[in-house]
């Protein structure tokens, strides 16, 4: 496969080959650009257009319909509450796990491998697994009943128990999606040269100070990536919520799904899609600004 080109066979730099060299990067980029344009930019523009059209004229009727729907405010509130509850916890957990992993000498790969298993589980499957734990006759209820902690089955996922439903969904999301943050942070930690930590240690910095002053700042690029990726995905949360709570806890993407499939109003569904996109973009901009990485640290 690796038939190296003989140096002697390389063509001499002619004007033609110089022009070609100038075009080459664009040529190589072209497939991915075309791919993105056709499969991302175009559908997005179509969605945007769909969301602002009413019949064949432009209008904001779809957005008005979205905003006045009885599930709009709850879905907005629930989505933000989930993001705010889940993402910070995931980052803290993943940071802790990445730090612990550094100290593991034996079977490090196996620990990492086990920690990243949820990454391979589809979100709906994860939701169903947690449903098996949390439903009325699920494992949690059975165990609690067996040890005599509860007199009878306790409903945890109904509309009457919004708090336990929220906690259940948050727990499932944390279980499912902390691994992606972990993987990014582990990669980032491995890139930090040991010399910085050792130098700080020589000057008498405690482990905590080394973490706060050396590791964390140097980890900023990875943190930024992890946060952007995780937050954007958290705003798109749907399958886990659907599996655990049905529509007892409406979320934005769930509402988009309902408007598309149940209510068959593609315009309002598109308005939800655009809203999720706008919220995700805003979050990304916030992270890019708040966690600005100095140019010399960019790779």
């Amino acid at each position, binding site marked *: 496969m690796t038939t190296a080109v003989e140096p002697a066979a390389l063509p001499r730099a002619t004007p033609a080959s110089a022009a070609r060299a100038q075009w080459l990067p664009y040529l190589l980029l072209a497939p991915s650009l075309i791919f993105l344009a056709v499969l991302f930019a175009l559908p997005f523009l179509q969605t945007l257009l769909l969301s602002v059209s009413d019949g064949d004229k432009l209008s904001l009727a779809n957005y008005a319909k979205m905003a006045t729907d009885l599930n709009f405010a709850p879905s907005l509130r629930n989505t933000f509450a989930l993001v705010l509850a889940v993402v910070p916890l995931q980052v803290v957990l993943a940071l802790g796990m990445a730090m612990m992993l550094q100290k593991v000498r034996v079977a490090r790969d196996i620990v990492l491998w086990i920690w990243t298993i949820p990454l391979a589980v589809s979100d709906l499957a994860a939701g169903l697994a947690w449903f098996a734990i949390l439903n009325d006759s699920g494992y949690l209820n059975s165990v609690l009943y067996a040890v005599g902690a509860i007199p009878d089955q306790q409903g945890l*996922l109904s509309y009457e128990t919004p708090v336990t439903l929220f906690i259940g969904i948050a727990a499932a999301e944390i279980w499912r999606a902390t691994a992606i943050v972990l993987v990014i942070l582990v990669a980032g930690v491995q890139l930090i040269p040991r010399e910085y930590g050792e130098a700080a240690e020589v000057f008498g910095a405690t482990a905590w100070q080394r973490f706060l002053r050396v590791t964390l700042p140097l980890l900023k690029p990875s943190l930024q990536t992890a946060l952007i990726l995780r937050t954007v995905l958290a705003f798109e949360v749907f399958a886990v919520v659907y599996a655990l709570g049905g529509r007892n806890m409406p979320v934005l993407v769930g509402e988009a799904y309902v408007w598309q499939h149940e209510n068959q109003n593609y315009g309002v569904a598109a308005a939800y899609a655009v809203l999720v996109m706008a919220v995700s973009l805003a979050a990304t901009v916030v992270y890019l600004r708040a966690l600005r990485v100095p140019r010399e640290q960019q790779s």
Partner: protein
Amino acid sequence: MRVHSMKILCSALLAALCLSGPARADDIVFMSTQLRPIEEAQKLREVILKDFPQKVTLVPEEPAPLATRMKAEADAGKRTVSVVAAGHGELQPLQAIGALDPIDDVAAKLKDRGIPASLMQLGKLGTDKQLYIPWMQATYIMVANKKALPFLPAGADVNALTYDQLAAWAKAIQEKTGQRRLGFPAGPKGLMPRFFEGYLYPAYTGGVVTPFRSAEAETMWGAFKALWASVNPNSANYDFMQEPLQGGEVWIAFDHVARLKDALIAKPDDFVAFPAPAGPKGRGYMAVVAGLSIAKGAPNRAGGEALIEYLTEAKVQLITASEVGFFPVVKAELPANLNPGIKLEAAAVDKTQSAPDALVSFLPVGLGDKGGQFNKVYMDTFQRVVLRGEPIRAVLDSEADALKAIMTATNAPCWAPDPASSGACPVK
């Protein structure tokens, strides 16, 4: 090693591609939202279609992607589907996007099958052309675990319940067992809107659109909210009532016959099946119809016509009833060796239809692609009144505006049991 496994993977992919490859042009591609579960689809392929002489490629499809696919095929100008089988409400959006071919010629050929005129009328989808031929019918019934029967209120006949008796029954169970054992399919994929449109509203108000915000409707929602206090709160997650019935979580349930079937077939001795309750205006019930239609630009229209003729033969209709539990649309006597579970259902359906106070309603007609939003009005009202405890009068008034907007936009005339209207069905 790696190269070897890549080879296996590639050949597996290739094999998968070949298997799922496009059907040959002379095949009849039969796309169906009905009988989608794998066992039912197998029965359709291997038992019901066994004696049909031509090759049929059955493609089970969810209702929502069906409309998307038909539209995509039309836009692309490359048609593959010849026959579409779907519920009445699922065929309506296809009519709205012009994906169905008028089949008055097929209807003329099937004149002697004995399909009731009211069902054939439904097949016009509010137009003056026949757009589908009724294929199978079903309705909704109630099923109760025999454990619930001792709690029936004094003097109540399970086959002639009223909504007040149902409420008293569920309340008695709750008080004596400490559990709420009445269940409704109010989950995301449940058919709860049909309960309001075909059962509760007609039973209390004698209509569904016109009396939406009437005084009777206000009484009805108050009564239903009181009844809901004895309903299992997981009802908001139930899609198919056969599951909680089989698990024992629910003792009394309302649902579509197809969604109760598994529990009755599995344990016919544990359950009773009976008609839905009656209200002040009668025993509301809804006739559900699935139809067969031919796609506009069908690549094999002649084959499609033959398939429709075959599926509506009395013999095939009976096979369909005993295999998948949907009832014939043609005149046909059910066989004696019917599965005991299906027999329970058939008896309950019969008791419903022949009840002296029976008040039949049909599926919404003429709503086009607004059918989903029509259901939403009833479900939103339910959510707001029952689950969120908003004042009934205010909710009815505001949802009536949404309902009015849908009726005006579609210009759909009233359907039974609302009194006939000229022009859009009015919301009084």
